[in-house]
């Protein structure tokens, strides 16, 4: 119980830290962001006399109230999902745009993370079990090298090979834009075929981390006395591998999940950008290039919250699976 309370505490504190960062960053920057914004917007078209005031409010930069008051107000707005108006999608509120992008990222990153985790854990277990064997001498070094590869460049290579050269798969967007979004087979098929290359990129570049951690954990666990004891009792090898070594070696992989997920999400942002995939990461970089600060900051928060929720869920799962975490508090 103490463990869960502690993890919940970290969850809340991290959330507050991200919110506070979001609040103070525009205020710490030199110059007046509202005037910067005004001049940028004016280059795109004429603005009314109220524009500066509107921008100040949109950025939360009202000079007439105290900083503390602004901060509390900002937290209240964040809690109710009010992140202001997007410049790019004017006059749509930021929250509406984010909700449209969210399912794409959750689907892509969620699915690929589960696939990479299961597959990577499995490969890691097998290669550590048959240590020095063919799989073990080929895959881990390959994954070490792959871990040094930039995600987005891998995505570019995929586009070059499967899109430009072979012309097998679509390389841009989340679905065929000539179709109407609907729950019919053509549309679902189009969504799936558009997700193959981004998913492949994320799985291939993130699987190495899971594999190497799992392999190294298994190598340590196999030397434990309870594995030797199981052997002495004559328990079948495959059963020792799955039930004795694998289960125990998996736990550090779960506790390291949060850190890994941070890397995966960071990479996914760039993968979405390269494939023009309509998720949060693509929208984040799009907002940056359009200097759409409210949208950008809300997206950063949204991505952080999604990661935090996933990490907390995994923490709860770890508490169920590993009694030691429950006891250690």
């Amino acid at each position: 119980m103490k463990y869960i309370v502690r993890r919940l505490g970290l969850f809340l504190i991290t959330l507050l830290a991200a919110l506070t960062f979001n609040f103070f960053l525009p205020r710490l920057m030199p110059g007046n962001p509202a005037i910067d914004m005004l001049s940028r917007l004016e280059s795109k078209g004429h603005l009314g006399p109220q524009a500066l005031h509107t921008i100040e409010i949109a950025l939360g930069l009202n000079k007439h109230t105290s900083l503390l008051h602004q901060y509390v107000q900002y937290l209240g707005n964040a809690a109710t999902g009010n992140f202001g108006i997007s410049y790019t999608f004017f006059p749509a509120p930021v929250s509406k745009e984010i909700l449209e992008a969210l399912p794409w990222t959750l689907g892509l990153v969620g699915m690929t993370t589960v696939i990479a985790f299961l597959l990577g854990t499995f490969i890691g277990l097998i290669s550590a079990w048959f240590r020095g064997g063919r799989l073990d001498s080929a895959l881990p070094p390959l994954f070490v090298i792959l871990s040094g590869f930039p995600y987005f460049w891998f995505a570019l290579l995929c586009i070059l090979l499967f899109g430009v050269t072979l012309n097998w798969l679509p390389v841009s967007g989340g679905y065929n834009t000539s179709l109407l979004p609907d729950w019919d087979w053509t549309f679902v098929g189009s969504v799936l075929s558009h997700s193959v290359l981004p998913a492949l990129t994320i799985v291939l570049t993130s699987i190495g981390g899971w594999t190497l951690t799992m392999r190294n954990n298994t190598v340590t666990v196999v030397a434990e006395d309870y594995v030797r004891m199981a052997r002495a009792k004559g328990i079948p090898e495959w059963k020792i591998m799955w039930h004795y070594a694998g289960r125990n070696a998996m736990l550090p992989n779960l506790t390291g999940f949060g850190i890994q997920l941070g890397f995966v999400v960071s990479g996914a942002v760039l993968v979405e950008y390269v494939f023009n995939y309509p998720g949060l990461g693509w929208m984040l970089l799009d907002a940056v290039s359009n200097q759409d600060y409210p949208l950008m900051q809300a997206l950063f928060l949204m991505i952080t919250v999604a990661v935090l929720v996933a990490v907390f869920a995994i923490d709860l799962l770890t508490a169920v699976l590993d009694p030691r975490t429950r006891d250690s508090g």
Partner: protein
Amino acid sequence: MVAGEAALGEAVGADLEVAGRLRGRGARRGMARMLLGNGKAVVGACLLGVFCVLAIIPGVIAPDNPNAEVFKPALPPSLAHLLGTTAYGQDVFSQLIWGARASLIVAFAAGAAATAISVVIGVSAAYLGGLWDGALSLVTDVLLVVPAFPLIVVIAAYTNGANLLMLIVVLVVTGWSFSARQLRSQMLSLKRREFLEAAKSRGERRSYIVIFEALPTMTSLVIACFLSSALYAVLAAAGLQFVGLGDPSSLSWGTMLYWAQNSSALNTGMVLWAVMPGVCVAMLGASFALLNYAFDEIGNPALRPVRIARARGRRRG
């Protein structure tokens, strides 16, 4: 938080045995011998060495001015232009060679600074304990969970086209936490060791114990931390420059990829322009990753490759 540390502590525990044995006179020679005997380390070090040479004397290898837009645009590879030219009429090969410098500066500067911070925070959190440990660990954990790249993007967007120094600062701020956590668990398990107890009962000062007694036993972990921070810096910097958040007029591999992507080089036949900078980032990244893994193996003897015959014998036995 606690479970993670327990797991890390266990993994790191084995490290101590070898670190303990390595202390003393033969330590440095022992480590050098182990590096030479480790295939991953040799390949990684050679790659890194080649890039260092490129960064130091680019003019000797590629005499063409990398920024001059003086050639015909979009030329295919030839003897005059080994990798062809860009859409702006620059020599791709020259840009590639001259671009090594920026990537290496970012890698070494950000890696070293992040490692220094992580040593100070990680080791003092573990050694001081109590409230200090609570506060420092909390900061570390918070930074560890926040996805780094979106954070970097937001900061870089506000600093408006980050120059090299700003880029390094941002990478250091977001890149030290993982190492700090590893060093903290290592220090926690060192704390109860006899040789530190002995130093304490000799009446040594705390700073002396940490710097001259504890830190030398963690050399391989500190180096591994440096390598992983440098790897992170190389990849994150390339990513930032690729999306146009670096200084677009600077010369680096990430910036090259940005301009190649902007001119849709993949679709217009200038494939090498879009692929080669990525190859360089990937090879530099791979060299750090290989060295990092090698130091992991040196620090943790359980991970070292075993001979096949022995492994088989043990499995049957």
